[in-house]
């Protein structure tokens, strides 16, 4: 190991974390060339491939630092966005079922036959890759104000659409504005508790008002970019004499043409993810308008923020007493910049960057803000969710004989899914308690709690 590994957890969470390969993966990352500071694991860490999910690491190009697709993942720039509203839980009341049905109709899961007919042409996809959420706004999906409330303004300028293969584009053509499957979702919830009144006020979160989470990424396009470049990086690692503890950590020096090409393609896929979430937001807003018979603007359905979980970004951080330009990999981790940082939107600069932490389907989710502590200790990063503690296989096994639909109904949660097999894999007990995860983050000072949200309805892909 070239640097230390550090996992944020308490003794309770260590019971979940210690049982799989996650800690070994933190150690593997610590062996990569040019890593600086520490190889970090967030409290929602779990076994991934290459990096652990919940892994953060920064690399210095001047010290032979590398970029690795295994430190970003297949679902490039997967992320979550939160919309707030002026609608109260009481006003939502009986409309919830109709709203969920409407969203189910309007936002395709993005797999299967029904969505294929609306595929974009290749030139349009190339524009998505270059302009991200700005492309979507130009097409009438949302407003320019939305762009001010997205990480990186919803557009990664270093994107290189030409570095994305035709295969990736082909996979991406029919999937802009689709949820996908796995752990992706759209969740209607409400503000259950506020911990920081000033920050909550600034974010527009009021007690008992309705919120919407949208969790998705770059879909098949991003998956193909990762697949394509994994092979490029495997060859590069051999060519540059890099010894890999896990082939999924295939990488190339940040100064190499292979790295430049991957970064360009990865940022392009990131833009696709931003556009994807922007289009879905628009469709969700329209569904609200239809059910509440009022324009979404009148319902106050404003974008709070959009954060990304899987990327590698150029950022400036203090390491060993000096400012250095580093490539910070976050795989299943959220950027959490402190108050005053120029990359925090002007509207939030005095409170810090909003951090959105979805929990499981039934319990709760959290809104946090970034802190100086995160900037100093974790390259401005924090956790991204609850983190799995049970495999999908075990989860499916554990629900045999149970009536999941009834269980969720009794919890007061409307569930819609293309397949209930997905719901079985995503049952609440398959995840750590996100409250424990967030408490560790809050106590360690790498994020500060602002509000807790409670789900009312969940749509799974």
């Amino acid at each position, binding site marked *: 190991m070239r640097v230390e590994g550090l996992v944020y957890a308490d003794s309770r969470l260590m019971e979940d974390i210690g049982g*799989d390969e*996650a800690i070994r993966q933190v150690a593997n990352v610590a062996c990569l060339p040019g890593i600086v500071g520490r190889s970090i694991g967030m409290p929602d860490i*779990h*076994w*991934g*491939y*290459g990096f652990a*999910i919940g892994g953060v690491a920064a690399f210095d190009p001047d010290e032979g630092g590398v970029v690795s697709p*295994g430190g970003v*993942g*297949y*679902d490039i720039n997967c992320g979550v966005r939160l919309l707030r509203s002026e609608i109260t839980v009481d006003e939502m009341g009986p409309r919830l079922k109709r709203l969920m049905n409407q969203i189910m109709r309007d936002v395709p*899961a993005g*797999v*299967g*036959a029904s969505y*294929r007919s609306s595929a974009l042409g290749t030139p349009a996809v190339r524009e998505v890759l270059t302009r991200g959420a700005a492309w979507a706004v130009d097409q009438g999906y949302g407003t320019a104000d939305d762009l001010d409330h997205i990480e990186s303004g919803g557009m990664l300028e270093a994107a290189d659409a030409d570095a994305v293969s035709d*295969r990736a584009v*082909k*996979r991406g053509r029919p999937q802009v504005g689709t949820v*996908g*499957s*796995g752990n992706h979702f759209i969740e209607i919830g409400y503000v259950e508790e506020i911990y920081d009144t000033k920050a909550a006020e600034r974010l527009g979160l009021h007690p008992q008002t309705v919120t919407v989470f949208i969790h998705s990424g770059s879909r*098949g396009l991003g*998956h*193909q970019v*990762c*697949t394509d470049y*994994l*092979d490029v990086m*495997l060859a590069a690692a051999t060519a540059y004499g890099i010894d890999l503890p*896990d*082939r*999924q950590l*295939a990488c190339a020096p940040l100064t190499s043409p292979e790295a430049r090409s991957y970064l360009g393609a990865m940022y392009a896929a990131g833009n696709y993810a931003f556009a994807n979430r922007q289009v879905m937001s628009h469709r969700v807003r329209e569904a609200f308008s239809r059910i509440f018979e009022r324009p979404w603007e009148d319902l106050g359905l404003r974008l709070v923020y959009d954060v990304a979980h899987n990327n590698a970004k150029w950022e400036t951080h203090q390491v060993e007493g000096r400012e250095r330009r580093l490539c910070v990999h976050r795989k299943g981790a959220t950027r959490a910049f402190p108050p005053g940082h120029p990359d925090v939107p002007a509207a939030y600069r005095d409170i810090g960057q909003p951090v959105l932490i979805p929990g499981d389907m039934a319990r709760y989710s959290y809104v946090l803000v970034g802190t100086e502590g995160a900037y100093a200790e974790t390259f401005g990063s924090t956790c991204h969710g609850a983190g*799995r*503690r*049970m*495999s*999908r*296989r*075990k989860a499916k096994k554990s629900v045999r004989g149970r009536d999941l639909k009834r269980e969720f109904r009794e919890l007061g949660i409307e569930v819609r899914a*293309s*397949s209930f*097999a*997905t719901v079985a894999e995503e049952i609440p007990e398959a995840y750590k308690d996100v409250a424990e995860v967030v408490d560790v983050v809050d106590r360690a000072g790498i994020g500060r709690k602002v509000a807790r949200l409670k789900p009312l309805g969940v749509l799974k*892909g």
Partner: protein
Amino acid sequence: MIEPPADDATGLGRGVREVEHTADVGLAISGATLEQLFHRAALGLARLMRGDARPAGARGATGPVHAAESAQVTRSVALAAESSDLLLARWLGELLYLDEVDGFVYEGAEFAVLDEGRLEATVRGRIDLEAPMCQLKGVTYHGLSLGRGEEGWEARVIFDI
């Protein structure tokens, strides 16, 4: 490559079982020959994504049936890799791609060439435009292995889900 339908506990096909992974899904595959292993792995992948599509009589149990009656189509696949395990990963990656873009669901293959670094095959399958039960994102190289074992050839592969 044709194997008689066989009842198996996993529903993933003969010689294929799911291995434990916290967040993703892994398969352990065995085969008497490299061809058999590649075929079984492909079938396991298809069943993981699409469920067991064999005719009800052959399954011996109830289960999802996805357009099993649709006409069979073929695709040509040619791949190369530096080692046999990477070749297996690329083979499965190719089938994952064909499923996503065309709804092509693997049923069998005739391998014209299959050695430890090269594969040329005509693959047979059906077109199923319905949503897969389980959408996989990619074939990872994490923990990927292929080698000779007690039953001929043995492999392990983890998919990102």
